[in-house]
C-alpha cells in the first residue's frame, strides 16, 4: 500500500507543479483609472464644456497637479504655472498642451525606467509588457492632442509602440525575446516622447 500512496502523492505534487489552470472562468477584470487619469478626464470634460472655473478647482485640488509638482525636475520649466494660467485665461488649447506634455513626460520616464530595469537583468518579456501597458495607458489619453499638433510624432509613437509590443509578445516562445532589442525599442519610445515634450508650441489643426 505504501508504494502506491507514495506514487499517488508524487503524481499529485507533479500535477501541482506543472499543470496550469487555464480553465475555470472566474470573471473578467476591467482595468480601472488611477487618481491621475481620473483627474485628467475630469479636467478634460470640464474644459470641453467650457466650465473653466470648475476645471481650475479640480486642477488646484487634484492629484494631477500634485504629481506635476512632485516631478517638476523632470518636466519643462514652468509647466505647472503655464497650465494653471491657461485655466485662468480660459485657453483650452494651452490647457490641452500642458496636459499633453505632462502625460508624455510620464510615458518617457516609464520608458527610461524600463530600459534601466532591463539593463539590470529583468526578464524582457514580462517586464517589457508591463511597462508598455503603463506607457500606453498614459499616452493614449493625449494621442489625439499630439496628432493635432504633430501628426508625424503621433504616427512615430504608434509605430514604436506596435514594434515594441511585437517584440515583447512574440508569436514564438518567450525565450526568443531579445533584451537588447526590447531596450532599443524603449529608448526609441523615450526619444519620441522627449521630442513631443520639448517641441515648440504648434498651431492646433
Amino acid at each position, binding site marked *: 500500500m505504501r508504494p502506491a500512496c507514495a506514487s499517488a502523492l508524487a503524481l499529485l505534487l507533479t500535477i501541482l507543479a506543472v499543470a496550469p489552470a*487555464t*480553465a*475555470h*472562468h472566474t470573471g473578467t477584470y476591467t482595468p480601472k483609472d488611477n487618481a491621475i487619469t481620473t483627474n485628467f478626464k475630469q479636467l478634460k470634460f470640464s474644459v470641453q464644456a467650457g466650465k473653466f472655473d470648475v476645471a481650475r478647482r479640480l486642477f488646484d485640488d487634484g492629484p494631477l497637479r500634485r504629481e506635476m509638482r512632485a516631478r517638476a525636475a523632470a518636466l519643462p520649466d514652468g509647466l505647472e504655472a503655464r497650465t494653471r494660467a491657461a485655466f485662468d485665461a480660459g485657453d483650452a488649447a494651452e490647457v490641452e498642451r500642458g496636459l499633453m506634455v505632462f502625460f508624455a513626460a510620464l510615458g518617457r520616464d516609464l520608458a527610461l525606467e524600463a530600459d534601466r530595469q532591463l539593463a539590470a537583468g529583468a526578464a524582457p518579456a514580462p517586464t517589457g509588457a508591463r511597462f508598455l501597458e503603463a506607457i500606453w495607458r498614459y499616452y493614449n489619453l493625449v494621442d489625439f492632442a499630439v496628432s493635432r499638433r504633430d501628426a508625424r510624432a503621433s504616427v512615430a509613437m504608434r509605430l514604436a509602440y506596435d514594434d515594441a509590443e511585437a517584440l515583447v509578445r512574440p508569436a514564438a516562445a518567450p525565450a526568443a525575446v531579445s533584451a537588447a532589442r526590447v531596450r532599443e525599442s524603449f529608448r526609441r519610445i523615450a526619444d519620441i516622447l522627449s521630442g513631443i515634450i520639448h517641441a515648440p508650441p504648434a498651431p492646433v489643426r
Partner: protein
Amino acid sequence: MSRPPLIVVFVAVMVIALGELGGAVLSQLRPAAARWVAARVVANPAAHGLSGSAEYDEEVRDRTVFAVEAGLSFFHTHAEGTGLVLFFTSTLVASVVHGVRARTALYLLLTAGALFPLGYLTYALAVLQLGRDAGVELAERWVLTPLGVAAIVGILGLAAALVRRPTPEEG
C-alpha cells in the same frame, strides 16, 4: 412531509446534475469549448456577418464566444436554482394541496418551469447557428417565455392553494 411523484423528483435531480455539468464545462473544458465555438463561427460566416477582414472577424468571433459562455453560465446558475425550487415547491404541493387534478396541474407547471434553464442552453447553441439576434429571439419565444410563465403560474397556483387550504379548525 409528503414527497412528490418520482418523475418530478427525477426532473429536479437531473436539472441540478445538468447545472453542475454545465459548471464543469465552463471551468474545466473552457479552452476546448471556446475553440469549438470559434470553429463553428468560421463554419457559419453568413449567420455571423463575417466580412473576410481579419480584425473585424476576430471581434465577431470573440463576441460570439463570450455570448455562448454567457449562455452556459446562465444555464449553470439557473439550473442549480430551478432544480432546488422544483424540489421544495413540489414537496409543498404533495404536502398541502388536495385534489388530484390540482396537484397534477401544479406538478406539470412546476416541472415545466424547472426546465427554464434549457432556454439559456438553447440560446447558446442558437447564437452559434443563427447569429446573436436570431438566437436570442428563438430562445426567448420558444423556451424562456413559455417555461418561465409556467414556473410563475405554478408558484402562484401553489400560493393560491395555500391560501385556500382550510385551517385545522375549519377541518
